[in-house]
Structure formats: C-alpha cells, structure tokens
C-alpha cells in the first residue's frame, strides 16, 4: 500500500521561528527519507524528469535513497545538478518535477525536492565528493557573475577540462543566493560549501570585479580568454514610480534583503550595516521575494507585516510553501490592492494610499489583468515599505560590450544554447530571460557550458 500523503518534514514552530533567522524546515532523517522515497512509482516514462530544467534522473536517485544508498543517490543528482542543496530548498517543485509526478494525479506527489535536499545535506555532513575534472584543454573561459547561472556554467566547463575564472562584482560569490534569499530559507553556509567545492575543482574566483567597470568583456577576450559567459542576472530593482517613493522608510526589496542577507544587518551593531524596520511594515508584491521580505521584516521585530498584492492569491507567483510559511507566521495578506502614493511626515514614511483592484481579461502573461476601481482609495498607516515587484536585467555588460545585441527589455539576445550576436560571448540566466528562477538560470548555464565546449573544440581543431 502506498502512502497517500507525503512524509511531513519537521519545521521550527511559527512562534519560535519568527524570532530567529535559522532555517524553517529541518530536513528528513534517513528513515523519513527512505519512507518517502518508497512512494515513488518508478514510472518508465518518468514525466518528472521533463519538468526539471536540468533533467535530473529523478526516479533513479530516489530508488537509491529507498535502498538506503545515499552516496549513489547524490552522485546521480550531481551528474545533472551541481547545487542540489540549494535547489532542494528553493526550486518551485510544485510547478516543475512534482507537478508532473504520476502519483500526484491521485495522491500527493512524491516530495522530490525534499529528497534532493536530504541527499545533498547527507553528503555535506559525510564529506563532499568533488566532481571529476577533465584533462586540461588549454582553453580559458571567463564566467561573469557567480550566481546560479555562472556557478552551473563554471562547474560544467571545469568538468570538460577548461580553465575557468569566475568574476563577481560583490565581495562574496553566490549572487542572489547570497544577497537575495534569506538565511532562514537558504543558510549561507550551504552556499559557501557549494562554492568551496567549485574552488576545489580549480575554478578561480575573483571578487570585487565589476565587469563593465573594472574591465570590459572585450578586455577579457583580449586578455587570453577564448570565451566569455555572461550571467549577470536581473539585479536592478524596479520601483512603482509613484509619489513619495523616496521617503525614508521605503526600501527596494534588493536593498532591504541585501542589507540583511549579504551585510548581516540583523546582527547590527556587531556587523556595521544598519537596517531600520518600523512597527507596521507593508511589502508590495506577490512573488518569492515579497514573501522573503515580509518574513524578514517580522524577524527584525516588526509587530505587523502586511503584503499588498494587486491580484488574488491564485495569481501569486510565490512558491506555495512560502505562502504557507508566511501565513503561519501571521503575515496579513491584502489582495486586489495597489499603492498609489506614499505619505510622509518630515521626510519619513507614515502611510500608504492604496486603490482597490478588480481582475479584468487576461494580459500577455496569461494572468487576469488587475484594473483599479475608481474612487476606492484608502489609506493604511505604516512606517516601513518594501517594494518587491520584480527586477530588471543589469545593463552594465550590454552597455559596455559593442555589438552585443539586446532586446527592447534590455535583456541580452541569446539562442537556447546561450550563443549571442558576438563570437565567443555566451549568455544565460536572468540577463537573457528577465527575472526567473534559480533552477532555470542553472539550466541555461549548463546549456551554455555545453555550447562553449563545442565552440572551443571546433575553434581549436
């Protein structure tokens, strides 16, 4: 008899976790993992694999967990995915692998993400195995940006035997994994451990290098790199463009989360970077970043945290688990509401005026377009606001690389395999697609690594 429901994962209780920054889900024990793994039907067609942007052989790794052979399980995952501890935590599995799980048609789908996380955590505790590195090819590749796309690209290039240098603009590598996703959802030590593996494989890492400022892509190509991968992400915050947005107390989600995650402002004054959070905080947006900001505000001591979203819960792009976690933590959701201006006293935020919305016909994203209801304006008293309505592609590399074609949205024009309009320059991740997910960026990084490998071998022959 197959269990109809998945083996639950233990979590920190809401009343406890809102006072700390430690991880919320606590992971499976080996017994729990084996029990969950046994729910897998081992379908011949394995639709789950088709839902995975990096095509992990899911039934095979789960079978090894069911047999208690965790070392082999993690090896299977790592054939396709270099950051399983990260992906097991932050992938939107419900719309990917788990969404296609055969078992899910009748019961709860197999908890693929939790099993991936279990295998990765097990390996980290036992000692990480370094993926094999290919024989040196003599080629040098520059990877610009050390977020998910760059990390995935660098690993695969190194596996193929190329010399790889990864450039990062900030003082710590990891991109959005370091500055964007909070500690309670993705512990930074896990990211550091993954990056340490990369370095052990021989990937050279240069921090504090802003490509487009410190040097250009063309300088890299002239400097002995035969190919460049651009994975600079969507790091530019979008604002609402409404009056009062520059009042003190209004943050972009990027600023709010960077202060807390990368700069550790939650440990101010032990760490030097400050953050100010008032008693009543409004977060604008409905994605994972909005959930992260709301739950971070709570942990920084806010008494009430409101999420203002212009559509309804059904249209929220956030992972279901993040929405559930936020609700358990008593974050208040206000749907069909959109800010029209921020109000202040003496330069500081004191309230937000909102308008009620209704859903009209679907827009280009396929979701029903929110339309303001005239005359429905109302005011909410707040002292902090965080704008989490998305990010734009970073313009620095496109702007400073002549001949690199960009779209009208500012993203780099690239084929499925990362090929751009410039020979030897490849791109992938959010800089090509606009803001998306960690795993899709990793998928793009892997495809580009394969294309770069082909390009170099053809060129060298």
């Amino acid at each position, binding site marked *: 008899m197959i269990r109809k429901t998945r083996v639950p994962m233990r979590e920190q209780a809401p009343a406890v976790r809102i006072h700390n920054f430690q991880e919320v889900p606590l992971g499976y024990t080996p017994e729990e993992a084996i029990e969950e793994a046994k729910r897998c039907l081992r379908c011949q067609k394995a639709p789950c694999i088709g839902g995975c942007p990096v095509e992990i052989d899911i039934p095979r790794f789960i079978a090894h967990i069911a047999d208690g052979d965790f070392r082999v399980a993690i090896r299977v995952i790592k054939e396709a995915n270099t950051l399983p501890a990260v992906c097991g935590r932050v992938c939107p599995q419900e719309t990917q692998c788990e969404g296609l799980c055969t078992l899910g048609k009748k019961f709860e789908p197999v908890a693929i993400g939790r099993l991936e996380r279990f295998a990765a955590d097990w390996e980290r505790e036992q000692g990480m195995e370094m993926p094999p590195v290919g024989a040196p090819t003599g080629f040098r590749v520059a990877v610009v940006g050390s977020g998910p796309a760059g990390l995935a690209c660098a690993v695969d290039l190194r596996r193929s035997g190329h010399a790889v240098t990864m450039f990062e*603009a*900030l*003082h710590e590598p990891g991109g959005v994994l370091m*500055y964007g996703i909070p500690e309670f959802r993705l512990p930074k030590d896990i990211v550091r451990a993954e990056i340490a593996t990369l370095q052990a494989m021989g990937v050279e890492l240069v*921090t*504090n*290098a*802003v490509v487009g*400022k*410190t*040097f250009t892509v063309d300088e890299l190509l002239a400097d002995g790199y035969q190919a460049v991968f651009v994975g600079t992400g969507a*790091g*530019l*915050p979008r*604002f609402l*463009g409404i009056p009062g*947005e*520059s009042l*003190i107390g209004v*943050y*972009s989600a*990027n*600023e709010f989360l*960077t*202060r807390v995650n990368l*700069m*550790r402002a939650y440990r*101010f*004054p*032990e*760490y*030097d*970077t*400050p953050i*100010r959070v008032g008693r009543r905080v409004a977060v604008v947006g409905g994605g994972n970043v909005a959930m992260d900001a709301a739950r971070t505000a709570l942990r920084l001591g806010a008494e009430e945290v409101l999420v203002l979203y212009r559509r309804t819960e059904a249209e929220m792009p956030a992972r279901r688990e993040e929405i559930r976690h936020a609700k358990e933590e008593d974050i208040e959701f206000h749907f069909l509401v959109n800010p029209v201006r921020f109000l202040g006293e003496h*330069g500081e935020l004191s309230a937000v005026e909102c308008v009620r919305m209704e859903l009209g016909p679907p827009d280009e994203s396929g979701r029903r377009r929110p339309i303001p209801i005239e005359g429905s304006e109302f005011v909410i008293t707040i002292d902090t606001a965080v704008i989490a309505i998305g990010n734009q592609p*970073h*313009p*620095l590399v496109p702007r400073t690389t002549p001949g690199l074609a960009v779209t009208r949205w500012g993203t780099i024009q690239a084929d499925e395999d990362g090929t751009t309009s410039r020979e030897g320059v490849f791109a992938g991740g959010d800089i090509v697609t606009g803001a998306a997910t960690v795993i899709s960026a990793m998928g793009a990084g892997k495809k580009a690594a394969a294309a770069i490998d082909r390009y170099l071998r053809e060129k060298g022959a």
Partner: protein
Amino acid sequence: MYAIVKKRNLADQITEYVVQAPLVARAAQAGQFAVIRLHERGERIPLTLADWDPDCGTITLVVQAVGKTTMEMEERFHGGDSLADVVGPLGEPSEIEDYGTVVCVAGGVGIAPIYPVARALKEAGNEVICIAGARTRGLLFWLDRLAQVCDELIVTTDDGSHGRKGLVTEPLKELLEKERVARAWAIGPAIMMKFCSLACQEAGVPIIVSLNPIMVDGTGMCGACRVEVDGRVRFACVDGPEFRGDQVNWDLLMARLAAFKEEERCALEQFKAALEEATA
C-alpha cells in the same frame, strides 16, 4: 586583500591612504569612486577617488573620520594593514572637454575628489580656477597639489585663519560676474553644493556636483542612493555620481543622508566606548 601602502595625516581628522588596488587604478577616471569594506563585519562605503597610479597599482583615498567606519579606519588601519575589499572604479566619469574657463569649487574634504577633476580639465586645455574652502586652517590640505593643476587658486576659511575670510560662494559669485565661466564643478558638503548651484543657476552657468548619498552595493542593485534630478529618480551609483547641480532636489538628498542617523550614532558611541576601554 588590499594593502595600505602609505597612510598620512593631512588635517584634523582627515587622512590620506594609498591602497594597492591595481584593477581599480588601471581603469580609474576623474569623477569615479570606489566602494571599500574594512573587514568581514564591515559595511560597504563609497569614497570618491582622489588619485591613482596605474604603474604602481595604487589608488589614493582621503577620508574624514566622521562615523564609526571612518573612525575605525583612522584608529585601526595603518600602513602595512589591509582592507578586506576595494571595488571600482564605479560611477560615470566626469565629462571632460575643453570648455574654456572652468571653476572648480571644493569644500572641506571635497578638496581631494576635486583634484583629479581639475587636473583632467587642465589637461584638456581649460583655464582652471580652483576655490578651496574649509571652516578653519587646520582642515585645509593638498593646496600645493591643487595649485599645480590650476591657473588660479583661491582659498577661503570661515574664520579667516587662512586665505579669504568667508564661504566659497563669495569668490564663486565674483568670478561668475567678472569672468566668462563656461562651466563649474562643486564637490563638498550637500549644503555647500546646493548654494554653489544656486549661484551658478542665477548666473546661467552650468554646474556639475558630485553627490554622496548612502549606498550599499554601489553597482545599481539596491537603489538606496536614489536621488531626484530634474524631477526624475536616478541612482547616484550608476547614473552619477555627478549630476547637474541646478537640477538636484537638495532637500531630499539631505533628508535621505540622515536615514540611519540614530543607528550611526549608536554604532559610533559603541566604537568610542570600546576604544576607551582598550586604552584605559
């Protein structure tokens, strides 16, 4: 790590640091800045480049000890020590052309960042007149260096202890009246840049200012440094730091500079207490 090659006191609470940062030195241009972080627990602070030497691979930073980080730098970072991080050059360079006669106004520690701008303008063929002002004689520095890159140097102090008694705006207004000034630059405290901008606006002379809002990453990612210029929100780190002074919303800039006043005071007090304990 970025080694401090040389440290020299320039004036009361103002120190010059020459730091190994070859990649920054190689690409630096007048008007750009670097972001530094002292140590693993440090904050990222922007500092406008005061000079650089691509051959030696060094940059020069002039820092006034006013807050916790700058005071810690003054007290605990000496020649031979290293900064955890230096990144740059960031921001857009100054628009250097042969304009004719230009006036460069520096207030206080602003003397340091105006120096490379004046030098570049001079090299481009301009007649450069510099005005350097401070509260009192003890806060002035680099006057000899500045004199070497301009055709005329006017010095003012609020208390008359050196040069003309009064504010930098007075000689600026005189110059705007009697000379055919094509363009002006002003770098210093926000209030000083605001009044220089007003004077130039009245005279119909374009003025460029270098803004110093609060920043975190310095590469366009956080938006902490947003300023209003000509009614539009701009990011000082990537769109600036130089903007047309007559178009800047100064009141907003000054308000936002005080966003973390309470936290900054708390951090500074704690640091001073720790210092006293260490020396007691």
